[in-house]
């Protein structure tokens, strides 16, 4: 009688061990199956960061494309062949000296149009001009929304004629869904 009980107990123990092994196998399989997805996700993030730096460099080295006249105390004419980098450096220097950004409204529109045209589909481009000793950006084209989203950014430092250092930051953020979506 006691021999039968012992045999039953050891039989139940063996089944329990097998169930535990099976549960462990399920867990290990789940871990293994999620591995390729994780690797894919990591490689996508790296690509997005590189594109912003290239986009910023290329747009800064391109022409503004329209003739502009601005009144900065004296009339300033900007040729359509002038580079975006030089225009932003000129605007940054003016703003550092306390000038009003409204003077450059046309230039800002042209720069925003170029960045919007070159930004990847489904992404909005935001440009910030930052002066080192200021906590707030000198200029934000357009105003960067506050909500948290997956963003990619890159920056370029410009040294102006009188040694001032200006940081141009480009932020790419996913476009907000339109009402039609």
């Amino acid at each position: 009688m006691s021999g039968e009980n012992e045999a039953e107990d050891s039989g139940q123990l063996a089944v329990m061990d097998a169930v535990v092994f099976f549960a462990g196998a399920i867990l290990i399989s789940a871990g293994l199956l999620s591995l390729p997805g994780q690797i894919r996700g990591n490689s996508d993030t790296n690509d997005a960061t590189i594109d912003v730096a290239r986009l910023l460099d290329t747009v800064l080295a391109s022409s503004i494309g329209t003739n502009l006249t601005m009144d900065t105390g004296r009339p300033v004419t900007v040729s359509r062949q002038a580079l975006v980098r030089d225009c932003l450096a000129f605007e940054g220097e003016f703003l550092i000296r306390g000038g009003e950004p409204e003077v450059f409204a046309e230039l800002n529109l042209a720069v925003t149009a170029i960045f919007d045209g070159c930004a990847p589909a489904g992404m909005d481009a935001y440009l910030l001009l930052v002066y080192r000793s200021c906590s707030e950006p000198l200029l934000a084209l357009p105003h960067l929304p506050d909500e948290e989203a997956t963003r990619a950014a890159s920056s370029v430092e410009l040294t102006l004629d009188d040694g001032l250092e200006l940081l141009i930051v480009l932020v790419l953020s996913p476009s907000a869904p339109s009402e039609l979506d």
Partner: protein
Amino acid sequence: MTCAMRSDESGVAGFFEDLPVLAFVLCGVLLLVSSSLWVSAQLAGLRENERLEKLTDRAADMIVEVIGSSTTSYDVPTMQSIERSNLFEYLNDLLRSVHYALNISKRGGQSDWYVMVKDCFTCEVSQTAFASRLLNAIDGSGLVVVLEVRLIVWRE
């Protein structure tokens, strides 16, 4: 005689009692083996894709270099020099075993200008990779514009 019968019965009962254990263990082993095989096949595919992506990235960089070196008088290539550069032969040498289509077009604003180079081959596509590069070029009116080089490659 009685003793031999008892041992046979316990042997048969033991076998049937062990069946659930055997089933659980076999299922667990099969699960582990099949998921390992699936994951190793996926990882091999990912490695192949990664190789193809690296090749595409390198090819796109080299195309930008070739376009940049095609100009003699300016730091920035002109659109005419891009049209004249023989990218078809260059790409055929560079991407021997894979098929490709290259498009260079103006980024932003309306423009009809583009350069298209591709090998005329249709096949079943198993893997694809894409690379895009931006570069500056001077257009006919002397403006520095932004061009996009888009390269798609695929394997049979």
